[in-house]
């Protein structure tokens, strides 16, 4: 059974819009006829801390959290958080990461430095790694703020959910005035 379950982890920094992205993904999976579960921690993490959202879908899903070391796809909104969550991924898993660095407090205060060459280090461990300049592509779609949707488009190519359901999920979850830009951003990501 568990082989048929898709395990996706969405990670980044509080305030980056991770919860909305994981809601769109869950909605698309449900529309495609799958059982879906999702889990994340609210509260303290909203104050700029690390955020990890788990989404699982398949014929029948039990645990709402991805069992350690069984993640199929790590969807990183920020490089340091992507690196931090690699142990959740299965060997040979897929990493799609936004090319973005947000300094944690110790780095802001000059006590530590932001780790260097994170993308290269991830690439060494996971051959299926894609680094995406989300804001740049989103700007081409009309608004740099739609970077998450670009990445969602990239991730969507690696999942067995057809484009119709993704677009329906976007229609349901994204405010009307931002919908067209987000659809374009999603399709641009899907073409990468």
């Amino acid at each position, binding site marked *: 059974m568990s082989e048929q379950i898709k395990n996706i982890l969405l990670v980044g920094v509080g305030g980056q819009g991770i919860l909305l992205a994981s809601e769109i993904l869950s909605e698309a999976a449900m529309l495609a006829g799958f059982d879906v579960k999702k889990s994340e921690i609210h509260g303290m993490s909203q104050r700029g801390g690390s955020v990890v959202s788990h989404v699982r879908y398949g014929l029948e899903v039990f645990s709402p959290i991805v069992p350690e070391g069984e993640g199929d796809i790590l969807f990183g909104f920020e490089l340091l958080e992507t690196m931090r969550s690699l142990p959740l991924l299965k060997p040979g898993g897929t990493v799609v990461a936004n090319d973005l660095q947000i300094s944690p407090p110790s780095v802001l205060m000059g006590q530590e430095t932001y*780790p260097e060459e994170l993308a290269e280090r991830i690439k060494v461990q996971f051959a299926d790694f894609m680094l995406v300049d989300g804001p740049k592509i989103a700007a081409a779609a009309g608004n740099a703020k739609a970077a998450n949707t670009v990445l969602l488009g990239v991730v969507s190519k690696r999942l067995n959910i057809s484009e119709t359901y993704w677009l329906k999920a976007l229609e349901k979850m994204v405010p009307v005035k931002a919908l067209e830009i987000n659809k374009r951003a999603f399709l641009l990501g899907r073409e990468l």
Partner: protein
Amino acid sequence: MKTILSGNEAIARGAYEAGCLVACGYPGTPSTEILENTIKYNEINSSWSPNEKVALEVAIGASFGGGRALCTMKHVGVNVAADPLFTLSYTGVRGGLVLVAADDPEMHSSQNEQDSRNYAKFAKVPMLEPSDSQECKEFTRLAFELSEQYDAPVMLRSSTRISHGKSIVELGERVADLPLPKLEKNPAKLVMLPGNARVRHPLVEQKLLDLSKAAVTMPLNRLELRDSSIGIITAGICYQYVREVLPNASTLKLGMVHPLPHDLIREFAAKVDKLYVIEELDPFIEDQVKAMGIKAIGKEIIPLCGELTPGRLRNSFGLPQPAVIPADNLPGRPPNMCPGCPHRGVFFALNQLKAYVTGDIGCYTLGFMPPLSAMDTCICMGASIGMATGVAKVVSNEEKKKVVAVIGDSTFLHTGMNGLMDMVYNNSPATVIILDNSITAMTGRQDNPASGFTLMDDPTNAVNIPLLCKALGAKHIRVINPLDLEETKRVIGEEMERPEPSVIITNKPCVLIKREDVFNKGPVYTVDADRCTGCRACLKIGCPAIEWRPAGDGSKKGKAAIDPLLCTGCDVCRQLCKFDAIGSVK
């Protein structure tokens, strides 16, 4: 219709479908979103109470008036509401009453990980425990029905993974045939004087026996026979981990965790070779199963502390773990106060004044973190003030001056004001700082009795905190602007010196308040690189908008910079710069 709901959204939906008329509670992670979702249903009167005890009393009143009532709180909130709860089990209900206790195993956002199931047993109240969002909805509905059928309040236990997890829910219709609420006197049942209570107590014990028997055939307790070599009794989120990790094991999934269906447990135990009890936190089910004389394995292999996960369960059973990439040693990313947070300057001053700070529960508990490092204790909601009084009772006169209690507006109104009453009454020399940011911020910006708005977003009467402190007898009350560092440090210093109780109230709003004209962003600030000497003074407030940029030559030299997207123009960093290097962008 099918939709994806969080456990909290599903509990709100279940209350709606059950014909619930009143929903009340106090915000607390992971329970907060239940009431933020009952407000979507016009049929339910939803409200925040100042604390959980009042919330439960409001729900009891609604129930005695004949309406169905939902009351929500986090696990530690039940401690505050415990007083009415223990007697409510004696009176029973009129309209159904459901009390949701949301536990937080692993303490993702809590000060302890107490197991609320013990309250059900202690207070002699039935308790249901759902294991996904569909069950959250169904069990909430069922809890209302059981409450009226057995004339008892019913507790619904959730946990972080249930409340904040999402899964697919099939929606139903709201019940329509409930009797209309109407006053009805019944003092023998509702006035708990000794004479009446002595009559009620045996009825409570009988109800629990009846329920334990009835629970044997209730569909919410489900016996699933698979491989009979291993049998597992479990409930709540743990059921999901059991099915994930031990898919072939037989399970007895308990939907009602108090009282337990003894005959069903015996039947299940007889059908399997080896019996396990798998539950998070306390051996609540396990102890009772063992007390029945049944041999079972539980906490011998299942951790007592923290939440269970599929990986931890695999560990307990010695099952192989998947190979994982080892974690690198990376800079951590702990939560932090927001850029422009009005609490920052106060903790900076307390640090400089070397105060002994008795802290409280809220965003400001982050004042503990470096570089502010200005919090010395944190126990529970409202504890700061009583503790300051207590510390000052035992230390030397010189040390008494160092004692400062720090508490937020919502926490002060929750249970802090009683502490102030005691401090003033008993003439303690300690100082109280009320960080009034006009909102309950930590749990996600909820209104409170001083914010001027209700949960339904209607303008309302507001507590005047300075006048309230005056009415409690405080003679020295000073209101300060916490974004003015000189004033903040000077006033706190003066009041610490004063050998009498004194109260300082800050008056700047939370930067996250979205209501118009409460918080207004100022002009964005910038660092003049020519003037910046790299002295690092501005880094001492730990503002996420200020970044140290190393010179890049391998030396310790560098300069500060301000992120214009994060800066709110609070002006605090400018006051720290001795070289006039920081100013607003013209």
